[in-house]
């Protein structure tokens, strides 16, 4: 299934129980004081099967970018529909370009793609709530768990564009990790057919 089948919806028109968790268009202050608006427009996904069938890029299905564990809010975890920010299509395209550069399969960890603003890991403070970040734990047969492999792939990812942020691997808490964090910034995507008039 191609992305043309995706159904964009305005998060502000969702039922209250979803809006309370997704917080569409709400302002959120980051750790360093910068303020960003959370995503407003989402794609509605009806089933896991659909998520597996929707191929956002030749080597990335939507399911890979929305797999979460039980730290996600119950409503967004165990029942459908699910909602993912529209900018996730840009992330998939970036990951495809990255895959082409490294010439190997790229594996995104659970909780490592889109996580909602209600997710226990970071919540709205995390850029993962924008659907523009990916935690890569494995490339080909290499598990990213040491300085050497992290640095090698960090440089490749960073070379793909000035807007790409790749977390530096280091000895400090929050730097040393078991994955490579890549994000495209606080990108919000408004599908052509959607209006931002509230």
């Amino acid at each position, binding site marked *: 299934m191609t992305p043309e089948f995706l159904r964009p919806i305005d998060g502000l028109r969702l039922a209250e129980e979803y809006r309370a968790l997704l917080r569409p268009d709400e302002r959120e202050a980051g750790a360093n004081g910068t303020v960003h608006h959370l995503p407003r427009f989402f794609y509605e996904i009806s089933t896991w099967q659909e998520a597996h069938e929707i191929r956002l890029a030749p080597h990335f299905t939507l399911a890979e970018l929305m*797999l979460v*564990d*039980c*730290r996600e809010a119950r409503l967004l*975890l165990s029942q459908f529909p699910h909602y993912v920010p529209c900018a996730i299509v840009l992330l998939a395209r970036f990951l495809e370009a990255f895959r082409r550069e490294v010439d190997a399969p790229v*594996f995104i*960890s*659970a*909780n*490592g793609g889109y996580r909602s603003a209600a997710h226990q890991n970071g919540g709205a403070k995390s850029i993962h709530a924008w659907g523009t970040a990916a935690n890569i*734990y*494995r490339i080909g047969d290499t*598990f990213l*768990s040491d300085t050497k492999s992290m640095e090698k792939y960090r440089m490749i990812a960073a070379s793909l564009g000035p807007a790409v942020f790749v977390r530096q691997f280091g000895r400090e*808490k929050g730097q*040393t*990790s*078991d*994955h490579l964090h890549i994000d495209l910034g606080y990108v919000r995507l408004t599908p052509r057919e959607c209006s931002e008039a509230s």
Partner: protein
Amino acid sequence: MSSVDVSDGLRDELEALAVKNKARSIGVALHDLETGFRFSLRGDRWFHAASTIKVAVLLAVFRAADQGRLRLDDSLHVRNRFFSAADGSPFRVTPDRDATPELYAAIGRTAKISTLAHAMIVGSSNLAANLLLDFVGVEYARTVLREAQVDGVELRRGVEDHGAHEQGINNEATADGLLSLLSAIRRDFLTPESKREVIRILLEQRFNSMIPAGLPPHATVAHKTGEISTACHDIGIVYLPEREPYITAILTEFDPDREGRRETVAAISETIYRSLLQTKPKSNDP
């Protein structure tokens, strides 16, 4: 105690076993649910809990399920990255010390909480134990132990947290404490469904060279072993078809290079069995 004679005889035999096998120390606790007989030999001595602490984690996980804090069929992100109880620095557990290597193949993906609980006990997976403890939280697990009125089990950190170990932050337990932990499982602290499942998991234990090795073949044991350099333990509920079960905790400490540690625990198990059932030693059987 229902029988002073049994208690004195058992004490003498266990002390003799400890001396004979050159154990630095042993701690044994016993509760026979058939007669009500209770026994404790240095039951209040603290030992490094080793992997017996995983039973405390198991209790916390099922208590959390009973309280609706988690669902056993929920999935958890499998990652090998934990934070030391000493200073918050990250550490990993090593696959070569884990009896459940297949779980490492799931790193990056998810595993069901029930699967992790099973791996933590049946295969003594350190990775599963740390994932579950990380999820429910040390403080919550300690609260559960308090609510279950388990004294003598100090759960302070995950396993293989060497930074914490170097600072003396360890999981410790007494034989009496671990006995009370198993007793909590057996009584009605958990819902009947959770109790049944916890005991089923303990019954599937893969490592059977200690308590079960000292028993006749018709005995079944819901148990958990624990071994590190100096400690060698086994705690369990012993089921015999002809009678009510008994609960025992056998903790031992040896010099690191001492051989025959598991055999010592098995011999203690056999001695307890004989004492309770008033049978002769295996070697004297016709």
